[in-house]
């Protein structure tokens, strides 16, 4: 089967891989919306949605009932509803941009996936090879470049809606997203300073950041620390990145852009049906990708635990079972993807918990926090690590 | 189908520059004029990258870094000026900004 895969032409391979990744991202984004409702309910001592049933599936003795209580079929019901609702187009909007905006929301959200590695497999020599759609050497730069295009959907949606709340929301969006991008980029730099220590080929690749955290690092700076996650080495960087991520993905404490209490949902006030659904899915896709980047940079990527890299885990499995499948590329690849996705889902759970824990900042507080607190902190952090890395480098 | 050569890139860059220039000359809205200016800058970066690629040096590419930096600074200052101007005069039409004339 593996041989068959490698015999396919590269274009077909790329197409299949892309479809597979989109086929994973989309359901995850959909399920996240469900998880959001469930987590919200649980935090508020409610059971949450648990009624929708698909015939036959739900009649499976125990599992069906469990899935129903989990509210899984509500995803289908929601999706179906969004598809078949009347897709209204208000009369006072700029039609072209009004329709374009939700599409523009999806494009960067799905395109960033190509730049994020999401797993690794063992090649013949026993080395871990990262799995990803685009083996881009410019990893993090590409992520920032493409995801920075996401702001257009919000701005255009607000502008094209031609009414007050969306308009205010889009003004806020354009300012807030630019502001936090700065801190985000600055907080990431120490990581790449670290892995680009002298004697290495320069890289901005996310897979290389994971490689360091896998402990398979050769030469360069601090070889003995391999296996440590950057989240432990650079807690401040991780913290700044996390806060900026909340602001960039437009999540509570920083969801002033669509704050329903003062802006009635802001940029999607005038939207309904599937166009609204696209915004919704794009927001979750952004969250998935953003969490993925955070995990890759600061959370050890596809390594199960700090100081326990994937290669060790596979080695132990092989040692324990003695079976050949434990080192088969397919198994290791699947294992790494499962570990990575589990971490990403944990991150998303964290996003949701924060949503029900922290009240929303006022807009001026958001701007003040971004420019007067986070940005100087990020710069100080960068300088500190630049000096520290120059100091400890052999 | 043509093979893209240095000349093609230069022609394209010149055309872009000319379009930007046209915009600066002919438009009345300060924002559009500013965008046309940026278009001219981008045209010059395209020429630089093309030269750099076809001469197998890196200097052109490095220059583009500087152009990008200057452009970013220029946009920030320029837009701030436009906003300040709008606050004073409540217009963005450049031919209405003629206080020195009268």
């Amino acid at each position, binding site marked *: 089967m593996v041989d068959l895969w490698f015999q396919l032409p590269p274009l077909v391979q790329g197409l299949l891989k892309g479809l597979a990744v989109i086929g994973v991202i989309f359901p995850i984004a959909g399920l996240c919306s469900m998880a959001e409702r469930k987590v919200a309910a649980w935090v508020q001592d409610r059971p949450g949605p648990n009624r929708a049933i698909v015939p036959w599936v739900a009649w499976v003795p125990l599992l069906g009932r469990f899935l129903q209580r989990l509210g899984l079929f509500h995803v289908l019901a929601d999706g179906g509803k969004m598809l078949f609702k009347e897709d209204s187009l208000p009369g006072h909007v700029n039609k072209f941009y009004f329709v374009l905006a939700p599409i523009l929301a999806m494009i960067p959200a799905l395109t960033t996936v190509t730049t994020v590695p999401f797993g690794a497999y063992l090649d013949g020599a026993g080395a871990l090879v990262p799995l990803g759609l685009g083996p881009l050497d410019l990893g993090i730069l590409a992520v920032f470049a493409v995801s920075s295009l996401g702001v257009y959907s919000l701005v255009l949606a607000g502008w094209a809606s031609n009414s007050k709340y969306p308009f205010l929301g889009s003004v806020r969006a*354009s300012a807030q997203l630019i502001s936090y991008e700065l801190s985000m980029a600055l907080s990431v730099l120490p990581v790449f300073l670290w892995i680009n220590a002298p004697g290495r080929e320069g890289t901005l690749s996310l897979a290389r950041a994971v490689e360091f955290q896998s402990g398979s690092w050769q030469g360069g700076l601090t070889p003995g620390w391999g296996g440590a996650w950057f989240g432990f080495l650079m807690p401040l960087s991780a913290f700044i990145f996390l806060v900026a991520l909340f602001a960039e993905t437009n999540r509570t404490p920083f969801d002033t852009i669509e704050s329903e209490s003062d802006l009635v949902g802001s940029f999607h006030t005038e939207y309904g049906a599937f166009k609204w659904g696209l915004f919704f899915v794009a927001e979750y896709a952004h969250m998935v990708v953003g969490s993925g980047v955070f995990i890759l940079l600061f959370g050890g990527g596809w390594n199960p635990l700090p100081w326990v890299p994937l290669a060790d885990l596979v080695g132990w499995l092989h040692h324990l079972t003695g079976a050949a499948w434990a080192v088969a590329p397919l198994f290791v690849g699947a294992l790494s993807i499962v570990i990575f996705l589990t971490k990403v889902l944990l991150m998303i759970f964290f996003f949701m918990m924060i949503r029900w824990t922290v009240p929303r900042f006022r807009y001026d507080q958001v701007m003040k926090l971004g420019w007067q607190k986070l940005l100087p902190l990020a710069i100080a952090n960068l300088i500190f690590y630049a000096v520290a890395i120059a100091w400890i480098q052999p | 189908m043509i093979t893209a050569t240095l000349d093609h890139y230069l022609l394209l860059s010149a055309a872009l520059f000319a379009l930007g220039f046209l915009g600066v000359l002919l438009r*009345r809205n300060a924002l559009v004029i500013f965008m046309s200016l940026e278009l001219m800058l981008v045209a010059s970066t395209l020429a630089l990258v093309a030269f750099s690629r076809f001469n197998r040096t890196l200097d052109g590419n490095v220059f583009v870094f500087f152009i990008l930096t200057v452009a*970013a600074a220029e946009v920030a200052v320029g837009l701030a000026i436009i906003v300040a101007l709008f606050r004073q005069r409540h217009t963005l039409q450049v031919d209405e900004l003629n206080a020195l004339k009268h």
Partner: protein
Amino acid sequence: MSPALFTLFAALTLASAVGVVANKNVVNAAMCFLLGLVGVAGLFVQLDAYLLAFLLLLVYAGAVVVLFLFIVMLLGPQGRAAWRLTPGAVVGGLVAGALLLAGWGSLLVHGRLDPPPPDGAPGVGAALKPYAYQLFTTYLLPVQVMGFLLLVAMLGVIVLSRKADGTEKAP
């Protein structure tokens, strides 16, 4: 360097440049500018300048055009005549057009229209190290000047965006 891709991106860039200059609506112009930037980024990729392509997207598409849109929304659209056809502008335009045509003509006549496309130069492309070496050796002074320029620009913007009486803080 695929010719088809070059044609595609060149056409996209030119068409959207025309869009920037000819559009009455400022938002349309800004979106055309964005599209043109995507085209230029594509051309950069054709020229093996991957890093610059992404930097262009990051700086221009991610920040500059958003700033334009922000200002457009802040100040509100202006429904007046879009063109300024003063005699000076027309003459200037004609002269510039003539110069451009002359330049094109000389390129077409004297230019080597079909030199062999060289293969990728070492160090050009996604590799970061050559850029870094250039920036911090040959071009160290310009880098410092750029840093200073950015600082001055920042201060300038802060001063400019204060209201005259100094009550409002910088955004």
